[in-house]
């Protein structure tokens, strides 16, 4: 847990710097929001350890969601502070680690046949396209757009 917390803090720092360079938000301004985001994550991880029937992702979403709903005391401040962190700036370091871990899968990737590569493209296209299409049809039927 302590190790995980240290990793979260480290990623938080990298994201704050990325947020500064990419979105012009000064680190001092972004810091409270990042502390809150790390806090939600740690609470969610703790709950996941206690009640492991739900995945950590669900716990963390739930905690962050509750803390930012109008029923939660100080929610406006929490929303304003977490809004200083751009969601893209936070995702960038994560994908950098994803990139750096790619090498370990390249050997097994090279052994795959062409068929499975083609099908994986079809599968990703299918899931994205059909979900988009279904959402769009419902919105159109409801006369929303």
């Amino acid at each position: 847990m302590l190790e995980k917390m240290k990793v979260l803090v480290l990623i938080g720092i990298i994201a704050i710097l990325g947020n500064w360079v990419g979105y012009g938000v000064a680190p001092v301004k972004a810091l409270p929001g990042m502390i809150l985001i790390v806090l939600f994550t740690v609470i969610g991880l703790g709950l996941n350890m206690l009640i492991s029937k739900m995945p950590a992702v669900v716990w963390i979403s739930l905690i962050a969601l509750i803390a930012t709903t109008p029923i939660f005391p100080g929610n406006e401040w929490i929303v304003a502070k977490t809004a200083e962190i751009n969601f893209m700036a936070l995702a960038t370091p994560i994908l950098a680690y994803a990139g750096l871990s790619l090498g370990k899968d390249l050997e097994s990737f090279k052994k795959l046949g062409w068929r499975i590569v083609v099908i994986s493209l079809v599968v990703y296209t299918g899931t994205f396209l059909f979900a988009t299409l279904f959402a769009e049809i419902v919105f159109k039927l409801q006369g929303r757009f």
Partner: protein
Amino acid sequence: MLKDWKLHIIVLFFVLIGEVIGVKQFNLGVGTIALFPMLYVLLMGGIVSFPKLKLMNEVQMKRAAGILGISFLLFVAKLGSMLGPSLPKIFEAGVSLAVQEVGHVLGTIIIGLPIALLIGMKREAIGATFSIDREPNLAIISEKYGADSPEGRGALGVYICGTVFGAIYLAILAGFLGSLGIFHPISLAMGAGVGSGSMMAAASGALAVTFPNDAEDIALFAAAANLISTILGTYLCVFFSLPVTARLYEWLEPKIGRTRKEEAK
């Protein structure tokens, strides 16, 4: 994990370079390709970890993968903090959110299975097309068929492809489809919530670049759709996707399957 300073310095360096380059869009005539920091750092990372270059060892790559899993939780917390203030908006789109999940589940099977059979895959097709084949799905398939079964190999193959190019592919697809102007940004955002962290991040990033005015809503609805996929995904997979794909295979294979002597790879 934390001790590996070389790894973190590389990441910081990549992030800074990526953010300095910023967003670039290429017009292909029919549509645009959106490039943005997430994709640059992913590519730079992929190059540095390329086995032939020997810049990184297996242990460091495994460490990077471990950090990826933990750090994604921060992204989830950030998205969660956007959900709270927008709950009314999300409930208003409730029907679309529910129905789009059906699209996520059926989308892999509807076009995946027939094409797999047409190009000559056998039972691998079941594992390859019953879901997007991320970790929870791999567990489901190996429990039912065994990890070394044809079904298990099909699932693992798509899993490896997803790890290697899933995020980049979905980002390009999302940005391109978005630029065509057929779909509303919110529908596309829901489509981006495929149930895999890095793919959702990259796809919603591409959409946010394509529709800068809707960036907040895109993150919001991609996050909501992704959460639904995460919560319902496993159950749907066990009780619906896998049995249905297996049945459809038995029915379709004699009709459109190719006879081949060699084992499909």
